[in-house]
């Protein structure tokens, strides 16, 4: 017999109860749906995509919830956000692949805390692209070039490896360094 859950109960307790009684999961959805959508919008910037991501995230939370065990320093909230971010990034990549004209910026390249507003027009996106280009030009050539291939020309890892005649590992390493440098340079140019 499952007792009615207190909506104020801790997340972990609600999740545990929902395995016996799925109606309890409503409380978790009500608690996290809006913040999740806001966070997902910061990545994909389309309401429909954000809603799909959030739905998928909740399904994953329920599916794999049994694997989640509260350990010191790990809370349900951080675990759930991790799932949300992974789902959102996967979706972001899909959206990017699906449409060549997608102009969303990679979340790595803009401040996640303050994403661009939803109604930014194409002009603003184009300005952002110009700004990205300007920062890339300040970077060492070999790093700026692969960042440009990847983010501005939407080339795949494989294509970039062929063009640059480097291995996949080297490319990933360079891309990582390029992103980090890009962040620092953009921060400097804002200041």
């Amino acid at each position, binding site marked *: 017999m499952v007792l009615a859950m207190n909506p104020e109960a801790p997340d972990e307790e609600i999740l545990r109860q929902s*395995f016996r009684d799925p109606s309890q*999961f409503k409380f978790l959805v009500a608690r996290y749906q809006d913040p999740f959508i806001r966070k997902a919008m910061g990545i994909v910037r389309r309401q429909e995509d954000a809603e799909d991501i959030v739905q998928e995230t909740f399904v994953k939370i329920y599916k794999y919830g049994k694997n989640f065990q509260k350990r010191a320093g790990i809370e349900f909230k951080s675990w759930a956000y991790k799932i949300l971010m992974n789902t959102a990034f996967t979706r972001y990549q899909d959206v990017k692949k699906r449409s060549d004209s997608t102009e969303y910026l990679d979340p790595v390249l803009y401040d996640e805390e303050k994403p661009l507003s939803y109604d930014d027009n194409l002009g603003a996106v184009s300005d952002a692209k110009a700004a990205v280009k300007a920062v890339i030009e300040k970077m060492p050539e070999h790093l700026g070039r692969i960042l440009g291939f990847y983010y501005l020309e939407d080339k795949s890892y494989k294509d970039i490896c062929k063009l640059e005649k480097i291995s996949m590992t080297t490319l990933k390493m360079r891309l990582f360094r390029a992103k980090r440098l890009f962040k620092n340079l953009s921060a400097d140019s804002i200041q």
Partner: protein
Amino acid sequence: MNKLLWKIYTIWFLRRILPLILIQVAVLIIVLKLLAGKIFLGKIIENASIASDSNIWEFAKYLLGAFLQTNIAVQIFIMLILSVGALILRDLGRAMFSYLKTFQK
């Protein structure tokens, strides 16, 4: 939200209810097959209706009498069928109750 809750309910049903019901139905079928080799249920019902003369209490009394007089293996099979049947009804009821609770406003 309903679409999401529907998915959650489906996962719960497939994980918690369906396997139980499948096992119970499998047990029920096996026991019924074993029982069919030992008694002829149609004939018992026919005899019970003749003996009871359309009186439901007499009908039940006849069946109970027949149950008590039969051999122990058949009695065990019948008890097993009733128990598994009750478990199936309980699980279906639980699924229905959870469904209503999940989707109530």
